């Protein structure tokens, strides 16, 4: 679709920044105006982002709606943004969950509302920017922009142990991303040495075609791939780099957890698909098996640890580790179904886990507690809430007909084609997932009303309409994508084909003996 030359991607990316400035200009006392301005901005951004879905060319191997301006000409750094099906889907996921999160924060966030809303909108700038950046330098800038608002959101509005959690989150992420910066610079320099010019040295499209034709030297591939891997694996988070996640999730305010789980974990997976595989295909082949093993460990380990969590949020956090293991498994088996499933799983996990964190927020608002053992019989008092919770629990467990099933199923099909063993191990997890999710649901909602909940008396109200408003869009999408996964699959077809084609060109490297 021709959008008449409107820089639509920049509009989507920077609309929240404009909104943040407007919110910052509103007097601090006028809390309602601040809230509605933030929500309005997020909704406008959401509507704008829908144009990306219309404007993107799903079958194309290249990018649509590209905008390109020189930024630092001396090094060929550009402001270059564009979308393919994959990034368009993830941008819309981001803009959807951002307005939902802002709406869900109306009740729980009562202090320093202005700073909160400004942080959230700037966070959205960074998240959207990461998904649309087509220049590695620009990508890195957006990647780091994400960090600061999330640091503040957890650190200011989080739970009792928030400072520990937020510093851990920042330091983990920084270590990975700073090494990635070195890798980005080394990659660009390597391109510059080969081509004799800095022009387009950070341009992803040029780098990708260079990687596909001449290819980067194997030493650089190994170093750069490992550096990218570390940055992305920490973000995903893959076992054993996941330990920041439960802390961050438990301490973050509800909306922070939602964005963290639904979007921020996708940054790492997106980075693998967009950058690490096409740029360093040989290294990707070399390290595929260890990464698959780590993914399988994450799938099983996350599920087992989730089984024994006493804290509701921690349980969902570990289930994220397990579910994201499916994503990395799907990516690194280099099979069409695997990659489709991985991307679908990214979207589904965003919708479902986002909703689960919203639901945990609802009960926490009323009880100020998340200990599963203290709950029991909740459905007697809050039947609508119980139904909504049940719906998303089943979706998360992979009930056929809901979207969670399709993604995991596709990954398993791809894994089976790669090796039946992978599929067999991963399937065990689906059983475990059903186990920890249903057991959790049973302990919270069934049986007699627990003493703790009885003591709350009339505070224990059922879900309010405004809270339902945040859940209904997510629930609808879960059903729609469950029944018609083709909606997403056609959009991402071009991205999947291009990525796999670039990986297929690669071959494993003979590593030095000390690397074995």
């Amino acid at each position, binding site marked *: 679709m021709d959008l008449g030359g409107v820089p639509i991607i920049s509009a989507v990316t920077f609309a929240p920044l404009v909104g943040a400035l407007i919110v910052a200009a509103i007097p601090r006392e006028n809390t309602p105006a601040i809230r509605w301005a933030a929500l309005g901005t997020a909704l406008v951004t959401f509507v704008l982002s829908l144009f990306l879905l219309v404007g993107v060319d799903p079958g194309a191997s290249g990018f649509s709606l590209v905008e390109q301006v020189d*930024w630092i000409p*001396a*090094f060929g750094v550009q402001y270059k943004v564009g979308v393919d099906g994959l990034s368009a889907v993830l941008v819309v996921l981001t803009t959807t969950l951002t307005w939902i999160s802002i709406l869900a924060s109306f009740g729980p966030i009562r202090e320093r509302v202005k700073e909160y809303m400004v942080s959230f909108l700037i966070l959205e700038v960074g998240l959207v920017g990461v998904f649309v950046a087509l220049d590695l330098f620009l990508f890195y*800038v957006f990647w780091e922009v994400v960090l600061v608002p999330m640091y503040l959101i957890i650190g*200011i509005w989080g739970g009792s142990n928030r*400072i520990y959690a937020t510093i851990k989150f920042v*330091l983990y992420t920084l270590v990975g991303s700073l*090494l990635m910066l*070195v890798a980005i*610079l080394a990659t660009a320099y390597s391109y510059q040495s080969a081509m004799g010019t800095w022009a387009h040295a950070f341009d992803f499209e040029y780098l990708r075609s260079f990687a596909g034709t001449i290819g980067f030297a194997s030493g650089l591939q190994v170093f750069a791939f490992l550096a990218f891997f570390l940055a992305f694996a920490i973000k995903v988070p893959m076992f054993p780099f996941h330990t920041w996640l439960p802390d961050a999730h438990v301490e973050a305010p509800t909306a922070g957890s939602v964005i963290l789980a639904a979007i921020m974990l996708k940054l790492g997976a997106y980075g693998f698909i967009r950058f690490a595989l096409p740029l360093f295909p040989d290294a990707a082949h070399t390290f595929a098996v260890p990464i698959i093993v780590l993914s399988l460990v994450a799938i099983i380990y996350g599920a087992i640890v989730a089984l024994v969590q006493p804290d509701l949020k921690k349980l969902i956090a570990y289930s994220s580790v397990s579910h994201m293991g499916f994503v990395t498994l799907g990516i690194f088996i280099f099979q069409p179904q695997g990659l489709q499933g991985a991307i679908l799983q990214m979207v589904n996990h965003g919708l479902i886990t986002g909703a689960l964190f919203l639901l945990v927020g609802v009960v926490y608002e009323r009880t100020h507690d998340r200990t599963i053992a203290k709950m029991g019989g909740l459905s007697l008092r809050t039947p609508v809430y119980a139904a909504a919770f049940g719906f998303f629990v089943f979706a998360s467990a992979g009930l056929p007909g809901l979207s969670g099933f399709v993604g995991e199923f596709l990954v398993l099909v791809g894994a089976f084609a790669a090796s039946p063993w992978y599929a067999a191990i991963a399937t065990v997890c689906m059983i475990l997932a059903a186990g920890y999710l249903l057991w959790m649901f049973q302990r919270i909602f069934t049986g007699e009303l627990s003493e703790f909940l009885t003591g709350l008396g009339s505070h224990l109200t059922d879900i309010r309409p405004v809270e339902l408003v945040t859940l209904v869009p997510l629930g609808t999408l879960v059903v729609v994508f469950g029944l018609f996964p083709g909606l997403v699959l056609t959009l991402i077809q071009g991205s999947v084909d291009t990525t796999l084609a670039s990986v297929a060109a690669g071959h494993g490297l003979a590593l030095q003996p000390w690397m074995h």
Partner: protein
Amino acid sequence: MSNQDLATVAPLIAAILAATAVIVVDLIRPGMRTPPLIVALAGLAIVAGATLLTGANPGDAFGGAYRVDALTTFLDLLFVAIIAFTLLFAPDYLAARELPMAEFAAVLIFAMSGAMLISASMDLLVLFLGLELMVLPGYLLAGFAKRDALSTEGAIKYFLLGSFSSAIFLFGLAFIWGLTGSTRVEAVAGSLAGIVAGTAPLSPGLAMGLAFLTTGVAFKIAAVPFHYWTPDAYQGSPTPVTGYLSVGPKVGAFALILRLFVGALGPLHDDWVVVVVVLATITMTLGNFVAITQDNVKRMLAYSSIAHTGYMLVGLAAWASPNSQIHGLEGLLYYGAAYSFMNLGAFAVVTALQRRRGVTSGIDTFAGLARLEPGLAILMTLFLLSLTGIPPTAGFFAKAYVILAAVEAGGPTALLAVIAVLNAAVAAFYYLRVVVYMFMRDPKGEPVPLEKSPILQVGLAAAAVLTIVLGLFPGPLLEVVAGAAKALVS
């Protein structure tokens, strides 16, 4: 001395006249605070104008001992900016403690003229003169609060170690002069090139000279293990002075390194680059790790400034090929500018908080600042993020630039790139700790509204704008530093 010579040194003369004018104004109206400040700022504007005018006609003066080129112009303008910021940030603090304004301004401008002399000198003796003219006022400034025991202690330490290192440095110069027969930068370089090429005999004295010079300079830039004077000197000094000391003499000493090591000792770079790699590694690492344990923000910033010396040395260490050398020097110069603005900005916030007497620079002072003074808290966060190297700030781009040069250089220097970024992650811990106090802790005691003079606000706003603009649009300054680096190596 010809008229041409006089025209070339016009900025330096203007600087000395400006300092004198400040003293004269103080003689006419003793004790007044505003007139000397206005005269000083106007004088700086004239110096900047003169620098730009002479910069348009580069050339040598005094038989080649003094040179105006793109490097001189860039560095001189940076020195003027550093002094101007210091003058904007200081008055509130000085007034609250009844410390004199006119002397402060005059001494600072004298120090600036020393730094300007360094940036233009093409003769080792002039270089030394410039160095002494730059650091002597620094000793005075460190002891500026003369009734404060800590300030005096810091000043004495600074003076003793400073004089000691100057002596070592001079000793090294003597060796080089004796072995090459000249004090002219170009003649020394030519003679050394002959020695490296094997046409002239290599003498053990040369190694001695190089070692003494390196040690002397390492003291001046506070590179580990020659950094011991900094924490005490920085913590004891009045806060605006600390801000200046952490930036002005450091950038000045780097100017000296550029003229001496890259200019005169360039032919020997194979020998000294190895030392710089080692110095950079330990300077970054030790500076950062010790900064973690500090509970006093001034002292923390002192150690972090040591770490920043290390990052700047990475730019110097990237001398493996002509390309990596020039990028390293450009990165070093860019880093110098970015570091000046962000570090002065951070010190300005500390200064603003210490406007009332008795407010310490302990980290507790920052508790809950985001509630009491949201503007100051946000600015401090910006400066700290820039110091950490988070985009889109000047500090990020500067770090990326020196790291790129290190990657280009390859070999052991490429490892420096990895060490530098891991250090940045360590630094994030203690910089963000201040952010934790400002945003995530409750204020201690009764909040007292802070009065901030307009002049301080102007300075803070300017530093913040520079910190952001140099990060978002590095292009223009990149061209300037590229010209400066080219002038140096051509």
